[in-house]
């Protein structure tokens, strides 16, 4: 080997060392900048010196739009409020939400648009199990944080190795089923339980949870297909099986349909609707519409049980509801503060916590890491803590149980219980109810 080539090798080696040192130096600067009060930088796609771009897909038109289309207006109102009060590290949150009409083909298109054209930093609150299933692989392949999917499916949080960028937010359907099951076992040990289930993950996970506690009490399980509006056979079958306590894992329109069908059949069991299907305002208006005005309001639902993982608008004394009402009155669109908007604002609150924790100049991976490291400790409007860790991306873990009054509000009858998927035990939540900060904006420390 000649001398010149040996010299070349040593030059190359020196260059490698120098560039490696430079890289270390660079990363040191970056690390220092993100924790101390340095200048804002455009540290990741969707983040500039003064804005953070977030995106989401919601059904704004079509069959799933009533109710669900209100969620993004809640998120937006809260972000606008935060923006007017200093933003997050002096950055304004720009929340772009697009319509997918609850059709997965559209979801794929609008999420492509959000990620590739709008170049959002993260997706926040994408709604729906079939719809979000279409984009979860894409988002994880592109490394886009996919926060707080608005669906209680286990898919989003149970396997962080497959979907490292995806996080759940609300209580999953299996944990909800377990809490309901235990309540029935303890308070109605003689009840003959019938299940009214949506024929997908929602009903399946709920059934799995509930069967862990009252398997021997269940006399019938009936499933309906979303889109088929005749639930006569299912309700009649539950009646024939002698069920006197019916638990429904169904969406709001099927709460209304099941009530009307039971009314026609003269069937009067004790009803228990899962959180998703129990919004009294929406169900009341649906009842009115389906019965062409013959049934008004939500009086039909009086006495039914349901679950909560958030405060609701019929608790005007709750400090969170008061704060959100104040913000909604000032920053919201037309219309009242509804439970769906409250849901959106609560989710926006968690999002601001995550952005604060991620540090001043975060990368997309910093955001994910921040939620994994400190997300479990966040306090907010959600009744029980989140389960976020490196091993689990599941959302909040607990629910309270309440009973609906003839006026259409809910009265709490069992405090918050927490649990987890699988054979985790149900425990009473011993934390104190949280209150918002003075200005209603969280104040989290950077996680590193």
């Amino acid at each position: 080997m000649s001398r010149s080539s040996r010299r070349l090798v040593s030059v190359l080696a020196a260059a490698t060392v120098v560039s490696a040192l430079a890289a270390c130096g660079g990363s040191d600067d970056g690390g220092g900048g993100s924790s101390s009060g340095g200048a804002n930088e455009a540290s990741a796609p969707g983040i500039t010196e003064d804005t953070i771009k977030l995106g989401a897909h919601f059904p704004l038109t079509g069959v799933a739009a009533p109710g669900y289309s209100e969620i993004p207006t809640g998120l937006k109102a809260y972000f606008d409020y935060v923006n007017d009060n200093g933003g997050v590290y002096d950055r304004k949150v720009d929340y772009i939400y697009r319509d997918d009409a609850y059709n997965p083909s559209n979801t794929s298109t609008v999420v492509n648009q959000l990620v590739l054209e709008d170049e959002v930093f993260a997706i926040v609150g994408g709604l729906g199990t079939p719809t979000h299933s279409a984009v979860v692989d894409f988002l994880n392949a592109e490394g886009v944080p996919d926060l707080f999917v608005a669906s209680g499916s286990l898919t989003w949080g149970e396997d962080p190795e497959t979907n490292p960028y995806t996080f759940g937010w609300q209580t999953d359907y299996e944990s909800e089923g377990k809490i309901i099951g235990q309540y029935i076992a303890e308070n109605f040990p003689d009840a003959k339980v019938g299940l009214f289930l949506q024929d997908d993950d929602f009903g399946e996970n709920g059934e799995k949870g509930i069967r862990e506690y009252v398997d021997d009490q269940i006399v019938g399980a009936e499933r309906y297909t979303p889109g088929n509006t005749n639930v006569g056979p299912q309700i009649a079958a539950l009646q024939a099986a002698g069920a006197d306590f019916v638990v429904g894992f169904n969406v709001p329109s099927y709460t209304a349909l099941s009530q009307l069908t039971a009314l026609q059949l003269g069937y009067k069991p004790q009803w228990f609707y899962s959180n998703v299907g129990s919004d009294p305002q929406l169900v009341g208006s649906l009842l009115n519409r389906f019965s062409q005005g013959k049934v008004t309001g939500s009086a039909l639902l009086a006495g039914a049980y349901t679950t909560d993982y958030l405060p609701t608008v019929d608790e005007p004394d709750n400090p969170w509801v008061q704060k959100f009402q104040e913000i909604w009155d000032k920053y919201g669109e037309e219309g009242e503060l509804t439970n769906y908007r409250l849901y959106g604002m609560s989710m926006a609150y968690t999002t601001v916590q995550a952005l604060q924790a991620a540090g001043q100049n975060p990368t997309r991976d910093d955001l994910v890491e921040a939620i994994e490291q400190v997300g479990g400790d966040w306090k907010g409007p959600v009744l029980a803590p989140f389960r976020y860790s490196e091993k689990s991306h599941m959302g909040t873990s607990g629910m309270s149980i309440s009973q609906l009054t003839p006026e259409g509000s809910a009265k709490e009858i069992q405090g918050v219980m927490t649990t987890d998927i699988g054979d985790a035990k149900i425990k009473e939540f011993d934390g104190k109810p949280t209150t918002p900060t003075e200005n209603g904006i969280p104040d989290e420390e950077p996680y590193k």
Partner: protein
Amino acid sequence: MSDLQSPAPSAGQVTEDAPTVATAAANAPSAAASTGRSLLPQSTLLRHLVLLLLGAVAAVVLLEITDPFTNSQLATLSYYAIAAGGLTVLTGMNGQISLGHGALMAVGAYTTALLLQEPADALPLPLILLISVVTTTAVGALVGVAAARLHGPYLAGATLALAVGLPGLAVYFHDQLGGEQGLRVRAPRAPESFESFIDLVSGASASSTKWLAYVGAICLLITYFLLANLVRSRIGRTWRAVRDQDVAAELAGINLGAWRVLAFVVSAAAAGLAGGVLALVVRLAAPSGFTLVLSLSLLTAIVIGGLGSLLGALLGSALLVFLPPFVTDLGTGSGLSSTEAAQLAPFVYGVVLIVAMIFAPAGFVGTIRMRWLTQKAKRSAGRAAPADSSRG
């Protein structure tokens, strides 16, 4: 020309007249071939090969100069256009109406999704798409046999039942087909040759979005090449004969039923391929993706574009893909909230549809072609008149 085709309409025969005007876009071949001024070769096959090559170059240029999001929109366009191309052959050429093409796409999409459940040891992609086409063709043949005896609104009703009923099978066979949330699809990775090709052409990064857009474009070009040849052949002429004058066609020895089934089968094959591409691009095959709205969108696409014209099907599909985001962005740009802007999109689409039907009842391509034919007729009449007068 149209005088020869349609007899004087008598009472109750309104439908006999409609296809001639409505399918003006479909009656191109003789006109195009007789101009003589065209730079394209006279032979149909050669002409289409040249067009295929031009289309391929145009597709590469288009995909390389546009941003990643437009690439993904073009991938969406490709599956709409493939299905619309098949439907325009059925409706424009053969006069059968189908509201069930969304369901046939579902067959293709679920076949592709099932074959891609184990991405590690899946079959090669072209083979998977081919199997999807074959499966859908089989289903199409079955439906076609039943449909061959039906006409107009009855056929529409039967295919409508298909569109409503078939996606329900996915819910019924929950364990095999994934129920309401459907089957997730992991598209196979791009081969290395694709990466080096992109590197050679533009030096851009070969993302999975781009790869899927190319897969869509290739499928689209092949489908349109085959369909274009088919409709210019004896088969296409027979279909038009069946469409325009079924009694005369039957007297000429054409078996109406068999030719109608064939048209349905060809059209189903295209829908199957479209479904396969859809599954790859959307990354999911779920019943909520194949609602009646999909079937109706395909029908509006071919009507707006011009019944019976492949170019029309492509233009109509482009409207379907590019108009809603354009309107939504326009809406948010002019100060509407996102919800209001989203509600604006279907409204504007409806208005465009109505305006098109009033001012261009034969669709984009059909209307332009009719104008051009009228002018040509006027010109030749103008040339003929002085000749006549000099003789007299």
